[in-house]
């Protein structure tokens, strides 16, 4: 064999050597059993949400006044609510809303927050001052109150929840990113990039931002349950999703009158919120541990 070039390196060795940062992180994550439990719960909820029409036996909107507040039974595994609607189907459809409400505002708020944080931290000066004071104002407001004010102004409804939560959430992401950028911009590789003639915008986007990703991944997994809970609270307070949409928060809200007479109407949707939020927190903690070598740096 002409022992030159890559062909002389055994294939297995090559693949092992090539394992990048994310592969290492994933394998470390896999060893964390709590995090994996969280991951499986989220995966299961996601599958249920995607295939909701195939899984649920009943129409979540079908009212049957003769079957009000039934106990869990073979026909209605989780019982029925005050209008005789099947609780299981409503919770399954509610998973769609909760996941969307967790994921979409997290994406938007972290996207905006990253852009603001990188700009602010890298450019410094007046721009930094102004952007950070705006962020301070947003953070200083009680976030649920701020979200409620936005919901009142824009009107209830799912898309407005996305807007309200994104608006409330970006400032924290901006702070996290900015603090990282402040130390990153002093790193040798930023100076090296400048010495190579890289443009300022490209340094921010290609050299600095990727270094913030590990902490943003963690922040993302912690933002999702926060937003799921915030949506539940908003819907519970009546400014979020509107009936008859089966949002989990709304299910709890509508069931609260029957908390003593038919506790399952509150307990199951409440339990679903709890379970999903907990699962995301487990995953977030697991990711933080798995990414630790990069976060510490």
């Amino acid at each position, binding site marked *: 064999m002409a022992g030159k070039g890559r062909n002389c390196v055994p294939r297995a060795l090559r693949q092992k050597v090539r394992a990048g940062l994310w592969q290492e992180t994933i394998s470390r994550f896999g060893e964390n059993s709590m995090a994996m439990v969280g991951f499986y719960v989220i995966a299961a909820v996601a599958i249920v949400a995607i295939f909701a029409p195939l899984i649920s036996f009943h129409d979540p909107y079908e009212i049957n006044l003769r079957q009000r507040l039934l106990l869990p039974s073979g026909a209605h595994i989780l019982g029925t609510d005050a209008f005789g609607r099947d609780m299981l189907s409503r919770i399954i459809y509610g998973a769609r809303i909760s996941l969307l409400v967790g994921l979409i505002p997290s994406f938007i708020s972290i996207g905006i927050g990253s852009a603001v944080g990188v700009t602010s931290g890298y450019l410094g000066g007046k721009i930094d001052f102004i952007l950070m004071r705006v962020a301070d104002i947003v953070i200083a407001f009680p976030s649920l109150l701020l979200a409620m004010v936005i919901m009142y102004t824009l009107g209830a409804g799912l898309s407005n929840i996305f807007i309200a939560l994104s608006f409330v959430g970006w400032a924290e992401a901006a702070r996290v990113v900015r603090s990282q950028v402040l130390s990153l911009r002093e790193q040798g590789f930023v100076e090296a990039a400048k010495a190579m003639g890289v443009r300022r915008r490209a340094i921010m986007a290609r*050299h600095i931002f990727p270094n913030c990703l590990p902490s943003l991944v963690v922040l993302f997994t912690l933002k999702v349950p926060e937003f799921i809970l915030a949506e539940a609270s908003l819907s519970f307070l009546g400014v979020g999703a509107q009936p008859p949409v089966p949002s989990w928060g709304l299910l709890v809200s509508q069931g609260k009158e029957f908390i003593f007479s038919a506790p399952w109407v509150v307990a199951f949707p409440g339990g679903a919120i709890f379970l999903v939020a907990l699962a995301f927190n487990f995953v977030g903690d697991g990711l933080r541990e798995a990414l630790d070598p990069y976060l510490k740096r």
Partner: protein
Amino acid sequence: MMQKLISVEGLAVRFFTRKGTVRAVDGVSFDVDDGGIVGLVGESGCGKSATALSIMGLLGPAGETTSGSIRFKGEDLLRLSPKEMRQIRGKEISMVFQEPMNALNPVRSVGEQVAEPLKIHLGLSGGEARLRAIEMLEEVGIPDAASRYDQYPHQFSGGMGQRAMIAMALICEPKLLIADEPTTALDVTIQAQIISLLHSLRERLHMAVLLITHDFGVVAELCDVVNVMYAGVIVEWGNVVDVFDDPLHPYTRGLLRSMPRAKRRQRKLEVIGGAVPSLIELPQGCRFHPRCEYVTKRCFSEEPPVFQLNDDRLVRCWLFEGRMKL
């Protein structure tokens, strides 16, 4: 006579700090010939790196080049707009830093970083840049470059990282390479490899090198000409051989004496007493007088000018008064 590639004249760099103005570089002049290797030697904090950063236009918000000129191919770099300067950096003038592991971005693959200047300056597509970068990685002595391309900096050793940095700096075939302590962070055996690599690359690419170091050994290996810097000024200039054989300035003598030598049996390493003066409050007269063993009364009050001994020997010390003054 060779042509001057870059000519630094009366360069002064100030850093504005809370404690006061730091006069990091205070009237430095030197040339680098086309294809030549010039050393800039001195202790930490003598203004070597500030000189380099000033040439690159990378002093940052706290630093400012307050006077002087840096003529590169006839153009004064200090008068260029940031955009024009950006087009020179990485293409015409490149820089290699001390800590390769710090100068490589940990979350981007090494190859991607090596290829980046090609995309920026020559507008090469991803595929072309990749091929060229792999060639360059091979040229700097990285084995199995094609698969190393996709690896991350933490999978590289310090020496390999510095090779990659050199590949990145030289990929657009610049006319001038500024190497700021390129071997300081490396093992001695690796140092020798990097030095010989720089040597051979310089010949092949016909580029000039400005080598910044505190290590006279590295200077002796690589350079044609050496500038000895102390507290923001150049105190001695000459051919490497001349300066080594017959150091003139007391500071240069001290530096050379304080190098450990295998031949001579020494109990103790010789040192230059005292420390580099604060660049905020420089001593009156000659900057070196508080540490100088030949100090005279005059050194306390008057700053020595540059005396020229012959065509290629300059020294900034009163001991050489009476010889030709520049």
